[in-house]
Structures are given as structure tokens and as C-alpha cells.
């Protein structure tokens, strides 16, 4: 839609966009939309609009009737599913296509339960570059929910202006750049934006309570007594060790759970590679590998939907058997753990924080059971499709553990 003429009124543009959508997206309009566009009952139609302030501080006017949502990241499904009840896909008009790549197991789960997931129009693949503006506008969204960038359109993307010109409000949320701080706020913003205030508020409160439980116990611990932690992102994906996070995403979980991230202050940006020698010299007390699933025969942490605890442990053992790892205290003392990689972009990251708190302080958090928290999330929020599988784990699978 970059060729759209500039116009003072958004209405003709919207109409043009609709027309184009009807022709260019005829296939979709004919086949998938009728099945997907059966929304759950929307609020009584009135002409009122709502002003909300999104995560970057923009004030956005949101129409009262939201039937078609455009997601700038496929993984916003994790957030939508928490508040959309038993039809999490019903209102998704289009989305970025990274979900099946970033979380193939989770996607397959949804596909089994909701085969229509494959017919949701995709606006791009796994990168911001791949986003197609025309396809995005032609999904005729009532609202667009974007993240701060990474795998989908970000703040500076031309698509934001194009959608706004087409009369589509764009709301930014974030579970990735500053997940601990932004998750409850983003859930509330999402709730207001798509008119699921109550459910979103309930989840935000649930999150804050659980976060507070962890924080209240770790805040008094002096830095010197906190375990030093190293998180290797997507361990084994490439030769050599130590792709890690300096600040933001996973680093926030480590700090929230009372750990000291050994890469903080070393890796200048969000992600970077620690020198393997530096890791050996630091000899952190706790080692965490993240991953989602194995790709082919390559070494990788298996974690996430449908992964058995024994599978996770076996893959973690293989990762910690790489040359040189045998000298790490964390590996020798069994304090090496595995974590589902996509927690870095999911509002369920409270599970990662609780799991870490247990790893860092087994005694202090003996009564905190992240599995119980997961069960509660499943019971109270994820009505359509519960989380099931090993999203975190240890070198040895817990006795009697099985896929829940």
C-alpha cells in the first residue's frame, strides 16, 4: 500500500483497501474468512470509542467493535489465548508467520485442535523485512497489535503509518524487550484494545501476585549471596558456546528470580557471545540452556509443547557433554537446567521466573511449584488448549514426571 495517494480522510483509503482485499485476497475471502471470522459475541454495538495508552506511550483510539485483529507477531497468540476463552483464533484476521518456525510443536498443537489455523492469512515470515504491507492492509483488520520489533513489524515500520492511514489503529505491546516490567501492562493494554478487559486484568493480577511472591523473597538477599547464573540462548544451534543475553528478555527473568547474570555488564547489547574462556573463568553456579526443539540431527535443547521431561533431560545432558563443559561447577553439581526458549516472548514467562527461583534457591522456594502455577494457568486462562509438556527441566528428569 505504499502507492496509496495521500488523502486527508482515511475513509476512501479504507474503502480502497477493502476493494483490493476483495480482489487480491479473493481466495481467502471465499474460503477461510467465513470459518475464522465467527467471533465470540462482541459488546453491544454503540458508537463510542475508547482511548488507550499503549506500551510505548502512544494514545490510540480504539473502535468499540473489534472483530478482526492483525497480529504483528504470531507468538502474540500466547497472550490472546489467555484472554480469548475457548476460541483463541476466532478474531485473528492475519498475523506474522514466525510462530510455526519459532514454536513448531506449539503450532502443531493448535493445528490439531483448530485446523483453520493454517488458513489465517500470513503477512510475513520470520523477519521484519519479510512483512508485506499490502497483504497486511488487505486483511481488513479493525485493529493491529504490534510488538517492538524483532521478528515482526516494529515501531519504525512503514506499515504502522500505512495502517493508520487506512483507519486501522495500531497498538504496541511487549513481552520481549522488557518482559518482566511489560507483561502485566501489555496484557492490560491488549485487554482494553480488544475488549477483554476483565480476563486481561485477571491474568495481569495473577502474574503480579506470582511475581511479587518471588520478589518479596529474593529482595532482601544481598548480591554477594545470590547465585551467579549463565543462560546460553539456543544452546548448540551453532558451533562454539555462549550465545547469551546481556540485558532485557531472559536477563530480566534471572534478575527477577534473584540471580546475578554473569553476562550483564559484559555483553553490551541485548544479545552477544560470551567468550567460552570467560564462562570457565566466571564458573557460574547455575547454567541454563534454552531451546525449543531439535532441528534435524543437530544438538539442541528439546523443550516446549509435547516434549517429555526425559527428552528434555537427555538433550540437556548432551549439551552439557560438549567439550570443555565438564569443568563447569554448575554441570558437575547438577545445577544445569533447560528452559523453553519462547518464554522470552510469552506472557507465561512467570513460569520461567518461578522455575529459576527454584533452581537458584531450592530451600527458600521449596513450597513454590511452577508446575502448580502452570496448572492454574491452564485451569483459569487457557481454556481452549492447555500448556502440556516440559517447558523447563533438569539434568535428571523429576521422579515420576510425565507429560501433563
Amino acid at each position, binding site marked *: 500500500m505504499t502507492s496509496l495517494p495521500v488523502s486527508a480522510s482515511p475513509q476512501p483509503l479504507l474503502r480502497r483497501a477493502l476493494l483490493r482485499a476483495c480482489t487480491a485476497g479473493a481466495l481467502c475471502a471465499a474460503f477461510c474468512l467465513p470459518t475464522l471470522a465467527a467471533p465470540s459475541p462482541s459488546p453491544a454495538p454503540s458508537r463510542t470509542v475508547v482511548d488507550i495508552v499503549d506500551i510505548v506511550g502512544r494514545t490510540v483510539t480504539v473502535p468499540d467493535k473489534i472483530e478482526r485483529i492483525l497480529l504483528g507477531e504470531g507468538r502474540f497468540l500466547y497472550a490472546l489465548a489467555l484472554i480469548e476463552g475457548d476460541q483463541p483464533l476466532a478474531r485473528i484476521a492475519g498475523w506474522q508467520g514466525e510462530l510455526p518456525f519459532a514454536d513448531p510443536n506449539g503450532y502443531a498443537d493448535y493445528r490439531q485442535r483448530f485446523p483453520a489455523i493454517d488458513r489465517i492469512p500470513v503477512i510475513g515470515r520470520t523477519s521484519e523485512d519479510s512483512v508485506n504491507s499490502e497483504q497486511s492492509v488487505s486483511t481488513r483488520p479493525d485493529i493491529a497489535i504490534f510488538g517492538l520489533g524483532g521478528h515482526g513489524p516494529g515501531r519504525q515500520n512503514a506499515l504502522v503509518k500505512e495502517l493508520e492511514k487506512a483507519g486501522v489503529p495500531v497498538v504496541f505491546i511487549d513481552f520481549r524487550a522488557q518482559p518482566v516490567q511489560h507483561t502485566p501492562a501489555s496484557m492490560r493494554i491488549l485487554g482494553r484494545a480488544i475488549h477483554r478487559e476483565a480476563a486481561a486484568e485477571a491474568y495481569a493480577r495473577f502474574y503480579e501476585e506470582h511475581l511479587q511472591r518471588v520478589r518479596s523473597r529474593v529482595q532482601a538477599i544481598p548480591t554477594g549471596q545470590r547465585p551467579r547464573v549463565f543462560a546460553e540462548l539456543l544452546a548448540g*544451534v551453532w558451533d562454539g558456546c555462549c550465545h547469551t543475553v546481556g540485558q532485557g528478555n531472559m536477563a530480566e527473568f534471572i534478575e527477577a528470580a534473584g540471580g546475578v547474570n554473569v553476562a550483564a555488564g559484559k555483553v553490551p547489547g541485548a544479545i552477544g557471545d560470551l567468550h567460552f*574462556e570467560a564462562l570457565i573463568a566466571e564458573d557460574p553456579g547455575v547454567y541454563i540452556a534454552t531451546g525449543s526443539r531439535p532441528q534435524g540431527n543437530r544438538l539442541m535443547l528439546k523443550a516446549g509443547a509435547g516434549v517429555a521431561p526425559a527428552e528434555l533431560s537427555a538433550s540437556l545432558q548432551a549439551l552439557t557433554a560438549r567439550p570443555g563443559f565438564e569443568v563447569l561447577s554448575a554441570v558437575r553439581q547438577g545445577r544445569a537446567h533447560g528452559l523453553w526458549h519462547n518464554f522470552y516472548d510469552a506472557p507465561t514467562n512467570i513460569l520461567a521466573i518461578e522455575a529459576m527461583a527454584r533452581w537458584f534457591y531450592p530451600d527458600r522456594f521449596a513450597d513454590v511449584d511452577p508446575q502448580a502455577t502452570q496448572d492454574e494457568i491452564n485451569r483459569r486462562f487457557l481454556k481452549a488448549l492447555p500448556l502440556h509438556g516440559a517447558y523447563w527441566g533438569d539434568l535428571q528428569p523429576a521422579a515420576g514426571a510425565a507429560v501433563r
Partner: protein
Amino acid sequence: MNAIAGLQGATAPVVPPLHTTSQASLQQAYRRLAGLRLLVLAALATGIVAALLLDFTTGPSGLSLAQLGETLLDAAHAPPALRVIVWDIRMPYALMAVAVGLALGLAGAEMQTVLANPLASPFTLGLSSAAAFGAALAIVLDWSLPGIPAAWAVPANAFLFAMASALLLDLVARWGGMSATGVVLFGIALVFSFNALVSLLQFVATAEALQGLVFWTMGSLSRATWPKLAVLAVALAVVVPFSLANAWRLTALRLGEDRAASFGVDVRRLRLGALLRISLLAALSVAFVGSIGFIGLVAPHIARRLVGDDHRFYLPAAALTGALVLSLASVASKTLIGGVVIPVGIVTSLVGIPFFLAIVLRTRGRA
């Protein structure tokens, strides 16, 4: 060290001795020049030893020289962490930097000569891009030759494609009867084709594979292991004698294909042999440490400025310069930000460019 002196040195082995009155002084001048050039080579070698020592003694764990020495001499009784740092990290990384530098410097030097183009290098003529595409096939699509162990799939693919593209370059040169310029243009076409194919694969890649691919293309010495180092060392040991044995023919080729032919040089055979050596060295280097673009292009230029066109000096000088630059880059990649590795492919350019500019500016107008 100017162009005339280079030519005199170059032609000395092939042209019969001149029976003139100035013969004695000419021989004297030649010997002095050769001595100077040997001195330059010795200085470069000394520089490499110094850089290697620096590389070996610097690292984020701040080990003392005594600790390093003890671990080096008596690994069995050293603490395990020390042993891993010295024997599995510092030694292979530092030696790999030197080996890859030697290989890329030599490959670039031969390539610029046989293709008669100062912009030729394994990087600019598509060998690195081809290797990247081969690596991408393994990383993204898990495609590899049957029977290759998983750990070697990426380097094996990278090697295969780099080798294939080098042979293709040679085939085009011979079959099309194409001039050196034509071969260079074909190489540039290869660069763009393989880059486009890599982008295409990136487009369908998973997040993990994409990240793996991006880091692979940036080049990293942390992929160095003893077996890889051994493979590269053997390749160097095999290739270098052939290169040096062909030094005078390559020198003659610098005077032009016709001139070289008139000296009795089989130019086609010379070019094929050189391309085979180049592809072996470049393909192995790229396969083991990823794309490091700067060395193959710039080391030959630095070497030419230092020792002239006589390939008996120029080839070793290019190899040694490559090793020196990459060894220094290896030090920089781990010390610029303490504890963090900056991909060496990035650092190489930053370290090499001042080096390069200094030499270009110092000798400007002379060549």
C-alpha cells in the same frame, strides 16, 4: 622495492645472465634486494610469533604467564579449568587464526596473479558466498552428503560448494576461452547468485537456523578444534610447496599471458593448478571459521607493497601478512570488549584497514 626493481628481480631466474660490464653491480644489487626481501619475510614471521604469543597470553580469565606455562608443560596435573582454557580454547583458537590467515593470504595472492585482477579474492569471486550457501543448506535444510557425520556437515557442505564454484570459474575460463576479466565478472555473478540463494534460505529459515546462519557468516574462531586445525595444516603443507615451485611461472604471468607463454609457461595449466590450490585453501578456511572477507583481498596488496612482484617472496609475504593480520584480529576480537567475543570477521576489517591504508598512503604515487 619499486616496480622496476620488482621486474628485475622477477626476470632474474628466467633471463640468461647479461654479459655486460655492469653484471657485477647488477648481481650485487639483486642480492641486496633479495636480502632485503628476506628480511621483510623474517620481520613478518617474527611479528606472527609475537602476535601468537599475545593471542595465547591474553584472555578473559586473566591467567598469569606462570600458570599458562605450567599448564602447557604439564597438562595432566593442571586444574581441569586451566587445562580446558589452555588446550581447548587458547591454543586451537590462536593457531587457527594463523593457519586461516596463511591460507587466505596465499589463496588471495595466487588468485590476483592468475586472474590478473587486483580485486580478485576468494571473497570477491564467490568462493566465500558459495561456501556460505553450502553451510546454509546444512544449517537451514539439514541437507548434506550422505555419510558425513553431523558435526562435519556444515564445513563439508561449505567446502563442497566453494570447491565447486572454483572449478566452475576455471571451467568457464577454459571452455569459454574467457579472458581473466571475463572470469572475474563471472565470479562477481557467482557472488550475487549465491548471496541471493542464501537470502532465500534465510527467508524460509527457522529463528534458530537464521541466527546460526547469521553468526556463521560473520566468521568466528570459536569453531576451531584440533581436528579442523590438523586438516588445514595438512592442506597448507601440501599446497605451499606447489605454490612455491610455481613461483617463477606466476611471476612471469604478471608480465602478461603472452610474455609468460613465450617463456615456455603453460598458462592454462598454471591457472588450473593455482585455482585448485586456491579453492582448497579458501574452501577449508571458510568451512572452518566462516566468512572472513578482508584477508584474501588485502594481504596480497600489503605483500606486494612490501616485497614487490617476485612471487618467491610475494607468495610467502602474502601468506605471512594474512596470518599476522588475522592473529592480531583474534586478539582484538576478545579484548575490545572484555569477556565478549566480537565475530572475528568484523574485527578483521577494522584491524586490517588502518594497516592497509598506511601502506597504500605511504607508497602512493610510486607504483
